[in-house]
């Protein structure tokens, strides 16, 4: 029975891999992620969700509930499989804040998600099911944030993810982030530098969505007459079809941006047709199993030693990844798989999560 043993399981998991428990932290953000061995000696990933006492007035945070529910409902080869959820028990009585809660039978303050250990999309910490209602604008790491989000809209839709996907594609080509801005304004400036000044139509579209910061940005920051540099920037790196593909994802107007289905060449419209040309182009996609594997390189950091705070030196480590893999892989674990939770991204996300809680 799954239910009665989940607690024992978490404890036994923790005990069983006591030696590797602390030393195998993989990522640290909203919760710590551990690499662990289960009873059947399978390598699993454990994601710990810590529930802070100050968040407890509203019970288990909705973000944690969303993450679990969404991961459980998704089954896809590219999405990590959640094997189990277990609860851990913290101190017996953590009601140090007498005014907030008076009695507390037991202080559940940890939830463990047991997941497969593989290269898959794993972090759904900020995910939620899409519905056409106002959403929080402060989502997504700023580098991958779409124009409408940068301009503060709360009426966005899944097209924000396609923008991010386009930028990740460019990052794969360049081995470095394309638009590493620090602030919203700087990020927008970088976008203008890449895509040129948005057309009046695009501006009108953004204004129609309701972007509170749009008019001020136009008045004070937006340079006129900048040209689109996307092709110039990438034609030396890649093919024309790829540039077209990226251009389809990096559109100012979210409605003009390709949809996920179009980008996957599903459907019969013009965008899907263009995407199809890209997918047909050489090199064709290959099966995952046929891809070469590489020794584990994780931001040049030693694995198996003490927990290192990662993501401090973002750009340089990312560059290091592309330059000399062998050297930075020194001291890497025996496993040849990378379990990358995108720490950089998660760290800034975790800050956002706390921010959201404060608002609530």
């Amino acid at each position, binding site marked *: 029975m*799954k*239910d009665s043993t*989940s*607690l024992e399981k978490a404890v036994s998991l923790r005990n069983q891999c006591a030696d590797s428990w602390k030393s195998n932290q993989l990522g640290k953000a909203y919760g710590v992620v551990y690499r662990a061995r289960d009873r059947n000696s399978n390598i699993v990933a454990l994601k710990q969700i810590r529930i802070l006492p100050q968040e*407890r*007035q*509203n*019970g*288990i945070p*909705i973000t944690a*509930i969303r993450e*679990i*529910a969404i991961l*459980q*409902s*998704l*089954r*896809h*080869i590219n999405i990590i499989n959640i094997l*189990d*959820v277990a*609860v851990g028990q913290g101190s017996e009585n953590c009601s140090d804040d007498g005014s907030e*809660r*008076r*009695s*507390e*039978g*037991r202080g*559940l303050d940890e*939830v463990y998600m047991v997941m497969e250990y593989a290269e898959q999309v794993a972090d759904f910490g900020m995910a*939620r*099911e899409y*519905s056409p209602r106002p959403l929080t604008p402060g989502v997504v790491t700023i580098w991958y944030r779409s124009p409408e989000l940068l301009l503060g809209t709360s009426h966005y839709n899944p097209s924000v993810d396609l923008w991010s996907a386009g930028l990740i594609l460019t990052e794969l080509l360049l081995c470095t982030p394309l638009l590493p801005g620090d602030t919203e304004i700087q990020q927008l400036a970088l976008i203008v530098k890449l895509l040129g000044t948005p057309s009046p139509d695009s501006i009108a579209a953004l204004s129609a969505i309701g972007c509170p910061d749009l008019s001020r940005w136009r008045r004070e920051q937006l340079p006129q007459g900048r040209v689109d540099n996307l092709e110039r920037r990438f034609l030396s790196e890649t093919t024309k079809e790829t540039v077209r593909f990226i251009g389809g994802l990096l559109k100012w107007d979210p409605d003009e941006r390709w949809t996920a289905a179009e980008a*996957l*060449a599903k459907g019969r419209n013009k965008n899907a047709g263009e995407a*199809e040309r890209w*997918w*047909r182009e050489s090199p064709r*996609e290959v099966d995952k199993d046929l891809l070469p594997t590489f020794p584990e390189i994780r931001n040049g950091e030693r694995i198996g030693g003490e927990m290192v705070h990662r993501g401090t030196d973002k750009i340089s480590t990312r560059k290091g990844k592309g330059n000399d893999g062998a050297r930075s892989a020194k001291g890497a674990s025996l496993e040849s798989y990378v379990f990358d939770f995108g720490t950089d991204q998660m760290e800034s996300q975790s800050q956002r999560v706390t921010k959201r809680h404060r608002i609530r």
Partner: protein
Amino acid sequence: MPPASSNSAPATVGSQWLFSEEELSQTPSMLDGMSAEQERENRSKGVNFITQVGIMLKLPQLTLATASVFLHRFYMRYSMVEKEGRPTFHYYAIAATALFLATKVEENCRKMKELVIACCRVAQKNTNLIVDEQAKEFWRWKDTILLNEEILLEAMCFDLSLEPPYHTLFQFLVLFHEQNNKKLRNSAWA
């Protein structure tokens, strides 16, 4: 071409919540000596509580259905019989907790305060009851909900994604060409 999606729902989902006739006659409460009728009555009181609090909070039907399923699942794992040496899970307490969790799962969050006040009002059968946030009753409900939330989640194995029955119901109505039979539709829906 991009890889074909392998997005088929796993066959195992839901199976732990499908019970045989025999299992249904051996619920934890019945094993503790409660009669089947009594348990059914208590469950329906719990669901009724969910409905009343839900209406007071203007929650959608779907959220109430989710909460009710949570309640039923909980009592397939825990007994409602009071016994010394173990915590008691009253059906009103679990109903309130199930509703609290359902509002989060279904994205219809209500403030804890609103929920607690509605619970107090329904429990006392007084829709205009003035509830003081410092009152003992307020705190009791709040603590009960927070404490039971964890137990409820654990009992349900964090299995939070439900398939609501309404779509299936509608398909059945279509199958029997009864989709325009308003009376049947309404009574089946509730």
